[in-house]
């Protein structure tokens, strides 16, 4: 198969996630900051990640992109450090630092030699409450995020389609607004907007510290108490209660055309439930459903039916990200063969799904998928940074360490009939958005 191809739509989801294989310690500071320490003594390296339980879905109306803009501005000055000094200090240790923003969280991370953790904590604690922004910083960096939007979104018809699909999927919930923001709102974001969002949301009682690598948990706790311990908690932190979706009463469809499209394709998203604390079984069933339908480009149900048994598609995928605060989407994408219309491709997808709901899961397929997920847990232990990522993301969306550690066993325990029950519930076109992306001359079905 061709590895570098595909629609580029699937989020990378590490199926199994962390398990019992890695030693994990957890603490909570008096100011409410949660701490997870993952030990891996194979190399003298440490990763620090600080996750804030705040993302683009928590932005005030009309200020889309402010969570991500603030993430950029967090590399400017504090009362103790000049702009850029954070990254310079990490580089001077041979380390690397970066940050990312999603719908549900914002995270800052560094990777350095294990004996330099002290410095990282001092600097990360400093910028948790003491950011200093000038108008000039804000004006220049706003140009940078507009260029980022140009590069990631406005230059890519597929990314623009994803935005339109999400906007159609969510009538009321902020997952319908792009993480990077709508351009017209990004262009108006101010220093005041950034500082208000910062002061309201960046505090130890809204943060998770994950330290992974060649470290001793007691020593990590002592350092965390020294640097993060004195940071005062905020009394402004509120539970994340966001506007929820009303019942969907009608299928939603859209067609987008763009001169930069070389191959038309169709995608469909269905609203689907997510992992919840102590209640992850349905989400585990949906993860398995995505694997059964589209996990392997060769043997999964969709590619086998659309690419092998019949020559309908060049690529077909199913994907689902279970680790979110509010209901997310379960998705399909089909890129038809030349000469096959989007109407035919969509009909073929629906035929395959209807047959699947009728006949159920091949037991050999199901066993093979579980074998692979179990092995992923072993392979996953090779990369301590992805372990840190998994714990951080889960805790940032409100799951507990116990939920994280129960997840691999849950994936093994879910039975085929539970997967089918989840499939029957989710795969309802009245809960879905169907989108076609075409070149201008290819709009006709």
């Amino acid at each position, binding site marked *: 198969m061709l590895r570098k191809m595909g629609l580029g739509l699937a989020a990378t989801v590490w199926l199994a996630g962390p398990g019992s294989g890695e030693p994990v310690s957890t603490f909570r500071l008096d100011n409410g900051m949660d701490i997870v320490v993952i030990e891996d003594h194979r190399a003298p390296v440490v990763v620090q990640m600080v996750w804030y339980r705040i993302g683009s879905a928590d932005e005030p109306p009309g200020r889309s992109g402010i969570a991500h803009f603030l993430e950029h501005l967090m590399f400017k000055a504090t009362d103790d450090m000049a702009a850029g000094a954070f990254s310079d200090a990490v580089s001077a240790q041979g380390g690397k630092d970066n940050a990312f923003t999603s719908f549900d969280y914002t995270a800052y991370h560094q990777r350095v030699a294990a004996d330099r953790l002290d410095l990282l904590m001092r600097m990360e604690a400093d910028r948790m409450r003491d950011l200093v922004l000038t108008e000039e910083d804000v004006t220049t960096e706003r140009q940078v995020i507009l260029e980022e939007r140009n590069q990631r979104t406005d230059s890519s018809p597929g990314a623009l389609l994803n935005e339109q699909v999400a906007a159609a999927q969510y009538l009321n919930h902020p997952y319908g607004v792009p993480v990077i923001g709508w351009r017209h709102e990004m262009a108006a974001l101010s220093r005041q907007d950034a500082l208000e969002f910062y002061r309201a949301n960046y505090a130890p009682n809204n943060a998770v510290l994950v330290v992974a690598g060649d470290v001793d948990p007691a020593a990590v706790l002592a350092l965390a108490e020294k640097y993060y311990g004195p940071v005062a908690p905020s009394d402004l932190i509120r539970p994340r209660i966001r506007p929820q979706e009303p019942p969907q009463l009608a299928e939603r469809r859209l067609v987008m055309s763009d001169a930069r499209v070389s191959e038309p394709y169709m995608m469909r998203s269905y609203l689907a439930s997510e992992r919840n604390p102590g209640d992850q079984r349905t989400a585990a069933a949906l993860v398995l459903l995505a694997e059964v339908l589209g996990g392997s480009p060769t043997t999964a149900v969709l590619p086998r039916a659309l690419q092998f048994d019949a020559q309908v598609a060049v690529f077909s995928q199913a994907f689902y990200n279970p680790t979110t605060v509010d209901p997310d989407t379960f998705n399909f994408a089909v890129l038809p063969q030349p000469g096959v219309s989007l109407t035919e491709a969509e009909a073929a997808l629906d035929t395959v799904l209807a047959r699947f709901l009728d006949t159920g899961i091949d037991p050999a397929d199901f066993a093979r998928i579980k074998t692979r997920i179990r092995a992923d847990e072993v392979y996953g232990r090779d990369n*301590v940074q992805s372990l840190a990522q998994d714990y951080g993301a889960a805790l940032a969306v409100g799951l507990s360490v116990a939920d994280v550690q129960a997840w691999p066993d849950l994936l093994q325990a879910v039975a085929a009939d539970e997967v089918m029950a989840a499939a029957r519930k989710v795969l309802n076109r009245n809960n879905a958005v169907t989108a076609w992306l075409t070149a201008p001359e290819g709009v006709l079905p």
Partner: protein
Amino acid sequence: MMGRFVFFLLALAGPLWALPLRAEIAIQTVTSPGGITAWLVESHDIPFTALEIRFRGGTSLDAPGKRGAVNLMTALIEEGAGDLDAQGFAAARDDLAASFRFSPGDDEVSVSARFLTENREPALALLRQALVVPRFDADAVERVRGQVLTGLRGDEKDASTLAARLMSARSFGDHPYGSSGDGTIASVTALTRDDIVAAHRGALARDQITVAAAGDITAAELGAVLDEVLGGLPATGAPQPGRAAYQALGGLVVQDFPGPQSVVRFSQKGMRFEDPDYFAAVLLNEILGGGRFGARLMTEVREKRGLTYGVGTGLASYDHAEVLVGQFESANDKVAEAIAVVRAEWATIAANGVSEAELSGAKTFLTGSYALRFDGNAAIATILVGMQSIGLTPDYPATRNARVEAVTMADIQRVAAELFTPDELFFVVVGQPEGVIATE
């Protein structure tokens, strides 16, 4: 998910400079009875092994008129082998929870395998089948050819790919480096099964092999399986191409493409790894265009002026050519200013070199990041096979940082004046740039 910056130049620019290794990693050399040598780092903490195999040559071994044959062949390796068709092969691999990746490059075909200790023997037997007796069934050829053609049509609508292709063509002309190893729509459409069989025979041969492993396997165990997996391949493959003359000597070309931004790629001649000044060049590249904050281009183009989301340069060392290449994206109405800033920085570093603070900062970064790359079996195996591919010996890690430290300020200033050639910096701009003057 939005990151603060992404820097993807390295993925486009071929293998970069040699990766360092921390001294305490114990590299063993293993030679099989059949004469295949592998490097190994044993680590029995996690019950799996990462195995990396490289076949030197890659898509540059395409026969005349058969551009894209090695690429298509590589994509077909796991689409059926021995008595298994594509479905059967994928099921057998997944039943063993093994993972195999076969990827074509300008200089090599790469094979990355991961397998659990409990399934080592059957997983390696399956890998052997894929490498030695792939089937290239007619239906698989047509299915994967369709995927390749889909990708090639997509490339024609992707500004970044267009910029890379145009730069390759202008840099290397008729040498294989001058065109995409994926081939063209016409060349891939015309490939026959015989062409694919010939590409397999030419590109996967024993005289092209480099092997490294890391993880839960001993030297004796590894030595015993090398012949089993690779011994059935032909002794000699297709001849390697000759040296590629670098031809993009100054100028600027524009290719029209719709969108809010222009993609800018810029290039000049680079430096061979074997050159005694190589580490001075590495330090200079880090100071000018290292993909991190504090590097000159990132500071001037992004941090001070907000003209781009990210900019960087890399010293790309291919087997048969060296280039110093950079890339950024900028809004169409700002790209002229961004290009002017890059040109000015190029002239400044050539004329004035760098400061003591910049040199010591770059040395600290390069030597300090020394230990940070080796965090896992997969990373270690990949680095070891890369070191072998460029002819290093297992003691290289112990000497590498000393070579960085040994670069003096006098070396740096001399190499800056020699390496950077502002008049020969060549630009490719794909987009609808305003106020950018093309030279042709």
